[in-house]
């Protein structure tokens, strides 16, 4: 081939510089800032000390929030698999003439703003919301049940956000299965259920695990559902970062928490990539 060595680099230059200057350098800055000191006046003083990290692990307050984030992330992952697999399977196996419309249904939630999907739980679970209104009307309860501002309502908000990602991942991996394998299994005498258990399910697992990783990362990085639907004790790690940076302008400490979150996710993503390969996630997101 012709030696056009500079050409791909010229094409890549804008993207690489965008990611380099707007992502890699800023993340390095977070790391540097996490060692700085904060003067009582609020000014940041360049330093190299581990005080911000020590502060995080000094008592149970901050680690507890970290553990809560991990627990909620695991809960979201499991619920998303349970709720998402069957609809994805339905869309995959459906031979209805509305199949195109069904596929649109997978994408539709992505197009509605996250904040709208989150805040609407207030319309549903609030004191005069849909559920309470209905229960009062049929006379099952005399006074509205408080449902909002606890971990359950936070979880509802999260599911609303995460479930579409999980369904898309599972659906894409199901769609990638060669259907003749299924026919072969049926020809050899498998029942529908056996064919599913022996062929479809194992072959769709890469999509399931990719969905799990994505849901985990997304949960760890969001502060909106706890902020809008949670009570004072439902903060997650991202809320902590938001409050430190936007609320108290404590940049060094906010940076240190970001570094802790980033390293934790790095370990998880690295382990995942080592054993399962990360490409499945990218493959699914390609499905649009």
């Amino acid at each position, binding site marked *: 081939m012709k030696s056009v060595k500079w050409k791909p680099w010229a094409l890549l230059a804008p993207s690489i510089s965008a990611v380099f200057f707007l992502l890699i350098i800023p993340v390095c800055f977070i790391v540097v800032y996490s060692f700085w000191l904060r003067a009582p006046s609020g000014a940041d003083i360049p330093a190299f000390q581990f005080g911000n990290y020590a502060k995080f692990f000094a008592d149970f307050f901050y680690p507890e929030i970290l553990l809560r984030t991990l627990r909620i992330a695991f809960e979201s992952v499991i619920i998303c698999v349970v709720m998402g697999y069957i609809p994805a399977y339905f869309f995959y196996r459906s031979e209805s003439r509305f199949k195109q419309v069904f596929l649109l249904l997978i994408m539709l939630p992505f197009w509605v703003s996250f904040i709208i999907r989150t805040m609407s739980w207030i319309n549903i679970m609030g004191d005069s919301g849909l559920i309470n209104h209905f229960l009062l009307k049929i006379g099952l309860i005399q006074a509205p049940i408080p449902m909002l501002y606890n971990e359950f309502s936070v979880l509802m908000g999260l599911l609303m956000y995460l479930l579409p990602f999980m369904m898309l991942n599972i659906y894409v991996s199901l769609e990638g299965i060669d259907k003749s394998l299924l026919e072969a299994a049926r020809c050899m005498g498998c029942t529908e259920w056996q064919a599913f258990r022996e062929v479809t399910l194992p072959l769709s697992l890469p999509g399931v695990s990719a969905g799990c990783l994505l849901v985990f990362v997304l949960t760890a990085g969001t502060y909106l559902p706890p902020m809008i639907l949670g009570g004072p004790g439902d903060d997650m790690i991202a809320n902590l970062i938001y409050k430190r940076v936007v609320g108290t302008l404590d940049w060094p400490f906010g940076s240190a928490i970001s570094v802790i979150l980033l390293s934790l996710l790095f370990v998880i993503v690295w382990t995942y990539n080592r054993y399962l390969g990360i490409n499945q996630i990218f493959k699914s997101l390609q499905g*649009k």
Partner: protein
Amino acid sequence: MKSFSPGWTLIKLYTILVYLFLFTPIVVVIVLAFNPKQFGIFPMEGVSLRWFIKLAHNSSIIDAFKNSLILGALTALVSTTIGILASLAFIRFEFPGKNTINTMLLAPIMIPEVVLGVALLLFLRFLQMPKSFALLVVGHVVLTLPYVLLIVQARLGGIRKDYEEAAKCLGANPFQTFREVTFPLLLPAVLAGALFSFTISFDDITATLFWASAQNQTVPVKIFSMLRNSISPEINALGAVMIVLTVATPLLAGYLSRKFSKEK
């Protein structure tokens, strides 16, 4: 055959329930937007357009809409352009470090948005620059670039190199080849990428909340600040307008592109 088995019926039922869960909050926003009363949520007390009219007269909301639209359009333009260039490099050339660079460009998907938001803002603070509209644009480009890359690369990989080589044999120069052959074949992916980055930018809140200032509010940021008080029919009306806009745009684009390709 399968359609009548009890198992399949259960699967269908389950799917309907999951979708009821996913769509009830969205439908409720739209329904409540027409609720004429000022406080509380349900019951509906008739149907009225008063909240929409109030929105139309609220200049800060109109500004937020303008900001969001311009921001989305600029983000889509920039990130689709640089995304296509990068995708061409990945699909059409072999060079050392290809996989590493591809992973690097896709990395923003795997970095929590809250960290992305803090990092860029911190960098700006270090440079001693004030928050500006430009910050929102560059930030949204980083947020959307990976998605554009994924979509365009998938499509570009499917275009056979033969067409381009045929054009070159027939005497077209590289630029002509791109304009006459590669680009038209790539157009659906370009549109999909642009549309996708527009909707991501238009809807984003997590990182945008760090980057927006009082002068540069987007619609989701506006909704967020209105939520400080409590939910109101006015917020629902604003939400309904957003939903209609972000759902209708891709649907319309899909419909048009299908019609367009059929006529061709």
